[in-house]
């Protein structure tokens, strides 16, 4: 493991492990609510934040957190107005984000490397990034553990959850905000185009083999850890982009699982 001698690889692996633990927790709820595309919409919204941040000369990550939260809340509102076509709300956010990030980026004079945002730059993370992501991990995991039962009941049957006295709207709001923050932060390291797949695909894999809700989450995290770590190692030896490699491994594994099931 001469690989681990490099500081940047060690940091990449730490960040990879943290995100791999966090993203499937969010992904589980998102998949079960049939809002799998929300990850894509919000990661594109984070790109709007990044471009806007650079334009205004502010910290791109902070601006993208703000933009992501606004986009997430906006999609909730839109969903209320078009209740029978939930996915259309997401497409609207996605289109709006692509449009705005396109416009903002055309105004930026400096030679910022956008591909690093699109496909991630997990091997260039700084110590500050590691710290931010560690805090995020603790936040998301504690919200997820604290709301475990309630989120289960809401995703299974929202109307009955309301009847049982669960504060459904409040919990949905908390969950939406946590999702937005996670995606904004994960987008920077793992890549705008890849964050959504790492959120959803490990859970889809886990659903193929698990016998319960709890084991689906645990297996989802295990899958996600395997994808991330092998992705980082392979990308180092084959000189590939880590984000893309991770996503490719995830998709291939899912295909193999599907084939095995047939």
């Amino acid at each position, binding site marked *: 493991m001469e690989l681990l001698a490099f500081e940047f690889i060690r940091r990449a692996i730490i960040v990879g492990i943290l995100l791999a633990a966090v993203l499937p927790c969010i992904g589980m709820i998102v998949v*079960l609510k049939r809002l799998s595309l929300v990850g894509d919409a919000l990661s594109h919204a984070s790109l709007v934040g990044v471009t806007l941040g650079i334009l205004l000369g502010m910290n791109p990550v902070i601006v993208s957190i703000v933009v992501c939260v606004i986009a997430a809340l906006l999609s909730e509102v839109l969903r209320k107005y078009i209740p029978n076509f939930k996915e259309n709300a997401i497409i609207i956010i996605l289109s709006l984000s692509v449009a705005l990030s396109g416009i903002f980026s055309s105004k930026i004079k400096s030679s910022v490397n956008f591909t690093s945002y699109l496909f991630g730059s997990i091997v260039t993370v700084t110590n500050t990034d590691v710290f931010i992501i560690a805090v995020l991990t603790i936040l998301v995991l504690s919200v997820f553990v604290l709301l475990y039962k309630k989120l289960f009941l809401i995703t*299974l049957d929202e109307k009955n959850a*309301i009847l049982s*006295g669960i504060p459904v709207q409040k919990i949905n709001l908390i969950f939406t905000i946590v999702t937005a923050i996670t995606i904004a932060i994960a987008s920077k390291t793992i890549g705008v185009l890849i964050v959504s797949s790492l959120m959803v695909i490990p859970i889809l894999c886990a659903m193929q083999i698990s*016998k*319960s809700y709890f084991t689906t989450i645990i297996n989802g995290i295990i899958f996600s850890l395997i994808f991330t770590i092998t992705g980082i190692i392979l990308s180092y030896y084959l000189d590939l982009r880590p984000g893309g490699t991770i996503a490719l491994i995830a998709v291939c594994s899912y295909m193999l699982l599907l084939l095995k099931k047939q």
Partner: protein
Amino acid sequence: MNSIIEFKNVSFAYDKHNKVLHKVNFKIYENEFVAITGPNGCGKSTLLKLLLNQLKKETGSITIMEQEQHYNYQVMAYVPQNVGLLFQNFPANVYEVVGMNTKKTKQQVIEMIKTVGLEKQIKHRITQLSGGQMQRVAIAKALINQPKILVLDEPTTGIDKESMVLLYELLHQLSKNGTTIVMVTHDLAGCKNYITKALCLEDAHICELTKETIEDELLHKHRHQVEEWNY
């Protein structure tokens, strides 16, 4: 005797021209097992939604255990129409679905699952159950907190005769033990021996059928249908 549920002059319309309920009155008492019937689109599900506070009535009053629109999970539980649709793709097992809804002990949850006859399937994923078994999971989930009132919307659609009888017997037993049952159904003929009364909804009005009048109603309906077929 005090009623558990009372509708007093309740009116409701989705739009101005079509009244779904017009000054509807009825009372349901403790230990009753009530069937609500009526043709498609007459407003049965709407009536349940009003009862469950998912829709707001226009006029009149709805009281539950002497209180106006006061609910918590120990008072009322609900088994929705199309349970299969809700359970579709949800990767949880039977124990989790029933146990997640309660602070009861593991043993009590297992007891509840036995009551609905699913002890063999306790570790099975709900997606792998049959329609009737899913229905029973939803009933166990609703009953685990011992609600005073159990509301079911067409629980027998897509269920074979045998499971239907088992379900009616279970509901009958529950009603004798103190749970008031309100069930929307198209199967008045099948459940008539188990229920205490039927509420028949038609043209925005309700008429109450006792055990004696149900037979007449069924016969009348039958004759009506035969006449229609003959023309």
